[in-house]
């Protein structure tokens, strides 16, 4: 099972994401943003947190148009598995691989703390290792995590069971407490909380482990 983790200038969670994948048993290939293609044989791509290209213009906007960005869109459109965390979620939203947009937090403050999340659907390769309705604790660390989507889009997400995680206590003003969403084919997940920061009992808990084990389990079985 091979995972790729993309590093943009300003990414700062790429190494943590690599550890998350490796602990679950994946072989991880690091991919630099100037690459125009993903390496052959990649099963899942991780887009890490950070401040890609300094968050210039809008968070994730420049990364979405980068050389590797175009390769990533093609990979997802062919049915590849992709997870974007924090800035990675912002990048996937800017690429339109996921609906909606991430805006400045309602309270305008950067928030960094562990938060309780409710696993809203287990119908995805990323969340099937949890039980539906389970509350887990995962850290958030963002300034622009306020998820917004128009009422029709929100109805579509709920009707299609595409909300992956909800905040138990909304920290940032996100509509309908949404913390993570899935693509229509359920193979692209974007989430603001950091599961890769919750894979070690001595560093912030282990509630993120099941996510990495889930996706790897699905890919190994395939």
């Amino acid at each position: 099972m091979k995972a790729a983790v993309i590093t943009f200038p300003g990414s700062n969670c790429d190494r943590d994401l690599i550890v998350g994948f490796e602990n679950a048993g994946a072989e991880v290939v690091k991919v630099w943003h100037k690459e125009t293609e993903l390496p052959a044989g990649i099963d899942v791509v991780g887009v890490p947190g950070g401040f890609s290209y300094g968050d210039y213009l809008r968070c994730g906007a420049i990364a979405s148009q980068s050389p590797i960005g175009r390769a990533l869109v093609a990979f997802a459109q062919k049915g590849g598995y992709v997870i974007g965390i924090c800035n990675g979620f912002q990048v996937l939203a800017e690429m339109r691989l996921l609906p909606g947009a991430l805006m400045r937090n309602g309270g305008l403050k950067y928030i960094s703390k562990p938060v309780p999340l409710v696993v809203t659907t287990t119908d995805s390769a990323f969340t099937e290792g949890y039980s539906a309705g389970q509350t887990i604790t995962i850290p958030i660390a963002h300034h622009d995590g306020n998820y917004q989507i128009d009422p029709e889009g929100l109805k579509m997400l709920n009707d299609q069971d595409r909300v992956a995680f909800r905040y138990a206590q909304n920290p940032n003003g996100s509509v309908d407490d949404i913390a993570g969403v899935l693509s229509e084919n359920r193979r692209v997940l974007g989430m603001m909380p950091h599961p890769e920061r919750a894979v070690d009992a001595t560093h912030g808990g282990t509630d993120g482990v099941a996510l990495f084990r889930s996706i790897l389990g699905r890919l190994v079985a395939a």
Partner: protein
Amino acid sequence: MKARVHVMLKDGVLDPQGEAIRHALGALGFAGVNGVRQGKVIELDLAASDTAAAEAEVSQMCEKLLANMVIEKYTVEFI
């Protein structure tokens, strides 16, 4: 030719930064500010000399990159 692009949040999209500015103006004693919306201005120095062609191209720039059409709207003026 120069184009000036104004990017604003769409009407109805809550603007937390605009709200913060409104509060700060109130704190400075400026009463009577009912609402504040903030956005950004992007100036483009263009090689094109034909306004019609430039207009079409700048619209594409806005929709592909300069604005996020999910939450933002834009206007363009040529100067």
